[in-house]
Each structure stands twice: as structure tokens, then as C-alpha cells.
């Protein structure tokens, strides 16, 4: 299968050669972790091979984007920038429909000068739909004029785009449609997105055909950087977290290096899962015992010791001491089972509870 280089050799190695062409990918990570720089690597690598690239910028105006990459010394003159940063909010009454607007503005990197002035005449709304419209217009104008298709597209960032999404729009559907739109252009695209809340499954993360994730941690007073591939459909990939650096040459990934993420958020991820798993297991046992206790009451069995044990288990569970909770719950379960079995053997006569265990006073517990 053909592969598309990300422009970072170490990362391509992790991806088994590069990205699969024509699909949308997500690049995620905290602010300042290198997402935009990777996007630039990706576009520069394309230009070097004669593949036209388009950058849709929503976070920073083009002049800032340009200033930020000058230091790396790449030739990005032929890169097209679509400026979708919002205009200054118009407060005029007649324009009230459009809260955040922008102007259709695509230019070569070497044409980027000062910041664009907010348009007085015609503002386009900054929304998923608005950006999609601008992108489409640019894509087909280019195709018509130069018979060239954009091969690489970067959206920086979808997080910004989502924030501008107009009220009433269903952002999940808008993003699904937007990714479909990118797929149908048959360009390889990189979507920059920040994972704001790991508890919420955001559309682009499961619809994207892969995710490259950047990590940044403070180790003493040094920033340690790392990169991992979380998902990559249709290909094998290196599933370790690899160290990386950002220097004047851009991003360098060491595809053989090891990262020890001690105590970081990554290590805790597994714990959260185990904790959930344990608490579920304990809850199940407790629920089972509670049900049996009900039955036991019907048989008029004395079960107050079991009730004691189970309430102890619940207390442990509340304190998140899962091992003790499970032990107490299982103990209660086994006493109760045994007693129930005895009772059943004596059916249907329902003999009084066996006096084996010290019969405590009638249940105080609810």
C-alpha cells in the first residue's frame, strides 16, 4: 500500500511507512506540544514532492503562523493558507445573524503580510459549515485553474472550529459531515484537536482513521516530550510511546527510544479501569447477596450475621478498599449459600434455622 510521509522520519517509522492516503487523521495533545509543527512538517514534505497543500488556520492569523515557522527554515512559499480566523465581532444590528465572521482569503505563504483587517462588506460565518464552504470553493477553483488537486489538507484546529459552531447546530453531525467531506476530496488530511475531556467521546476521535498523540510532561525543570500512536486503521504500527524533541530542525522522534512515564496520567489510565472493574465486581456480589437475603427472609432463616458482613463490605466499597470489600462480600455470600442449601434440603418442611452459628439478636440493620 502507498504511504504518505508525515515529514518526520521517526514518526513515519512508527506508522510503518507513513499515513494511508486519502483519509482524515487526528493529531492531539496539550497546548504547546507540537501539533501545529507536525502539521507544518506534513505540508512541507508534500510540497517537497510536488503535492499541493492547504492549511486552514483557525487558531492563529496567517502572519503569526508564518512567523512561527520561519525559524525552521522550511520552504513553504507555495503553501496555501486559508485564513478562517474570526473577524472582530461586528456589533452592527443588520449583521446580527453572523456572530463570528471571516472573509474568504487564501494566499501563498510568501504573500502573507500583516494581519487581515476585518471586512467591512461581507463576512462569512465561522462555523463548520462556513469553513467547509470556503474549503470547497478553494479546492475546486484550484482544480479548475491549475488542474491540481490539493493532496494534503490541515485543519488547525477543530477545537477552535467547534467553539465557533453556531447555536442550534448539532456539532456531532456537523463534524461527521465535515470528515466525510474531507474523505470525498480524497486528500490526506490532518485535523488538529485537543482532547478536552477524556470522559467524553468526541466525534473526530472515533471517526478519524488514526490518532497521533503528543505528550508533554515536566520532569524537574525540563520539559519532556513524547509521541504515541493511539489508533491507526488498516495498518500495523509501533504502539510504544517514543521520545521526541523540538529543535531548530523541527520535530525529531526517536523510534527506538524508551520513555518511562512514571506516575504520569498515562500510567493512571490503567488504574482507573481496574478500579472500575473491581468496583463493578464487588457491586455484583453485594447485589447478589442482598437478593439472597430477601429469599432467606422468606425461608425465615436467621441471616443477621450475613447482613453484618455485607454492610461491612459496603463500607469498604465506599472507602474504595476493593480487596477487603470483595473478601467480605464473598464471605457473606458463602455463609449464605451454605445456609440456603441446608434450608432447601429440608424442604418443604422449612425447619427452623440451624443453631450452628451463634444466633445474634434480631437484625438491627435495615
Amino acid at each position, binding site marked *: 500500500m502507498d504511504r504518505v510521509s508525515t515529514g518526520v522520519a521517526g514518526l513515519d517509522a512508527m506508522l510503518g511507512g507513513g499515513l*494511508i492516503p486519502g483519509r482524515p487523521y487526528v493529531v492531539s495533545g496539550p497546548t504547546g506540544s507540537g501539533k501545529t509543527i507536525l502539521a507544518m512538517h506534513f505540508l512541507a514534505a508534500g510540497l517537497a514532492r510536488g503535492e499541493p497543500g492547504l492549511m486552514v488556520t483557525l487558531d492563529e492569523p496567517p502572519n503569526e503562523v508564518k512567523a512561527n515557522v520561519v525559524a525552521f527554515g522550511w520552504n513553504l512559499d507555495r503553501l496555501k493558507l486559508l485564513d478562517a480566523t474570526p473577524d472582530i465581532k461586528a456589533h452592527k444590528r443588520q449583521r446580527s445573524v453572523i456572530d463570528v465572521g471571516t472573509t474568504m482569503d487564501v494566499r501563498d505563504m510568501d504573500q502573507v503580510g500583516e494581519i487581515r483587517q476585518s471586512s467591512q462588506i461581507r463576512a462569512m460565518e465561522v462555523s463548520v459549515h462556513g469553513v467547509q464552504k470556503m474549503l470547497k470553493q478553494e479546492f475546486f477553483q484550484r482544480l479548475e485553474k491549475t488542474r491540481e488537486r490539493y493532496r494534503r489538507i490541515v485543519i488547525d484546529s477543530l477545537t477552535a472550529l467547534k467553539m465557533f459552531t453556531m447555536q442550534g447546530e448539532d456539532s456531532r453531525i456537523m463534524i461527521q*459531515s465535515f470528515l466525510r467531506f474531507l474523505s470525498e476530496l480524497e486528500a490526506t488530511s490532518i485535523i488538529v484537536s485537543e482532547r478536552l475531556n477524556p470522559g467524553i467521546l468526541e466525534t473526530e*476521535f*472515533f471517526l478519524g482513521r488514526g490518532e497521533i498523540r503528543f505528550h508533554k510532561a515536566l520532569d524537574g525543570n525540563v520539559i519532556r516530550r513524547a509521541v504515541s500512536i*493511539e489508533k*491507526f*486503521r*488498516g495498518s500495523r504500527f509501533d*504502539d510504544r510511546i517514543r521520545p521526541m524533541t523540538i529543535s531548530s530542525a523541527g520535530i525529531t522522534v526517536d523510534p527506538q527510544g524508551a520513555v518511562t512515564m512514571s506516575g504520569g496520567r498515562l500510567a493512571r489510565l490503567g488504574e482507573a479501569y481496574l478500579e472500575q472493574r473491581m468496583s463493578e465486581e464487588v457491586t455484583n456480589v453485594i447485589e447478589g447477596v442482598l437478593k439472597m437475603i430477601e429469599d432467606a427472609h422468606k425461608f425465615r432463616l436467621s441471616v443477621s450475621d450475613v447482613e453484618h458482613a455485607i454492610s461491612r463490605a459496603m463500607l469498604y466499597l465506599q472507602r474504595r478498599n476493593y480487596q477487603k470489600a470483595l473478601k467480605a462480600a464473598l464471605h457473606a455470600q458463602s455463609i449464605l449459600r451454605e445456609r440456603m442449601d441446608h434450608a432447601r434440603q429440608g424442604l418443604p418442611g422449612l425447619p427452623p434455622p440451624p443453631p450452628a452459628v451463634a444466633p445474634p439478636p434480631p437484625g438491627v440493620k435495615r
Partner: protein
Amino acid sequence: MINGKIRTGVAGLDRMLHGGLVPHRPYIVSGPPGSGKTVLSMQFLLEGVQGGERCLFVALEEPPNEIKANMRPFKWPVDDIEMLDANSDIRRFEPTPVIEISTEVEPMRMREVGERIRKTPDFESHEVTVHSLQQLLKNLFIKRRYERVVVDSMTALRYFCMREFEETLTTQSFMRFLAESKVTSLLTVELPEEGEVPPEAFLARGEVRLHKLRDDTGIKRFISIEKYKGSSHDEFVYPFEIHQGGIVVQVGDGGKSPAAAG
């Protein structure tokens, strides 16, 4: 068939399920993105077609051409699996006629799936709603007897196809529809990396969960049966790997399982 159960196509999983799945019911396969849900469900259908059953894959997350390309490295004989493209078109904002999927789309065999993505037509667009999809499946189930059906994914169905519906109730009724249709179905559900399990998981008769954990040596995958009504099952969490031949679960007894010889 072992005591009336059907095989999943993953030997180790069958062992965890004490023989396989009770037929004609909907089951959930849940897990975070990239945990192996699509691969597992493809193996489930492969097992079916190899036994001469009619099998349907309902694609809601990825275009069929990509699914086909992604499965190629496994070299499975998937040609006879039928593929229903239930991906919505690009949404239009101009007033153009919206075509309901139920009136237009037919499944195609995997061998007929092309190399390139289907393009949104210029003057109309398909919109897939849960209602239209259910109608379409209903008609299909009458016309052709499908034994196994995969819906990939329920999350996409809930996120993108239930705009004007109450999500939990609609999901429930969709699953009920599948149960009444007498097909054995696997429904994939995307899980977030942390936090709560989405409502779909509570509604099925059984749930196979795939877990993704990271340690210093990379991504570790685990599989567990979270729920299986009407059958005993293994309570433990087993590690699994995705090999050349597909998913291989390392179930304890008798050492490594011989794996599905593709």
C-alpha cells in the same frame, strides 16, 4: 454448534462464552477507538459465511472501500460478506431533496466494493436516520434471510442518526427490532478512555468488552465478558493480540490457543 450456541469466529472468545453465542439475539462489543471492535465483528461474519450463512455488515463509521482495504492484510475470504453503506452523505445547507436511505441503498457483496469512496451526488444527498435504516433492514430481512448482522457502530447511529429522537429509547427499540428479526447481531459501541459506560451497554443481552491499556512496552489489549444473559461464562479478563490471522485470545487452559488458522 455447541449446545445450541453459534461460534464467534474467535476460538478463545468462544471458550470464554462457554461455547459461543446464543443465536438470534443482539450483543454488544464495546471498547475505546482502536481496540479491535471492527476486526472482531468481521471475524464473526467470516465465521458465518464460511458456514454458508448469509451475513451483513452495516457500515456507519467508515466508507466500505476503506473497510475493504483495512481487512486486506488479513487475507480473509470476505468476498461473500454483504456490505451496507449507511454513511450519511455530506450535509447540504441549500434546500436540496434529502433522499432517505431506505428507498435507495442496497447492500453489495464485499467483492463488488470499489477502491474509491462513493461521492455525494450533486443535487441530492442521502441522510441516514435510525428510522429509515430500520425500515431498510426490515425489508432486507424479509427478502433475504440473514443469519448474522454487524452494526458498526451503534455510537455512530446514536450520534449521527437520532437527531430528533430520544436516544436511549430509540436505541432500545432498535435492539428490540433486531431481536425480533431473529438475526444474531453484534453491535459495536465506542467507549471513552475514561468515565462512564454509554447507555447502549445496558440494553443488550450480552456485552463483550475490549480494553486498551498502556504500559512501558506499548498497548496491551484485554477482553472480558461483562454480561451474558442466559448462559454461564468466564468472569476473567484475558489478554488478546491482533495477529496476521485476526484476534487471538490467550485463554488459560491448555496453554496458547491454536488460533484461527485463516
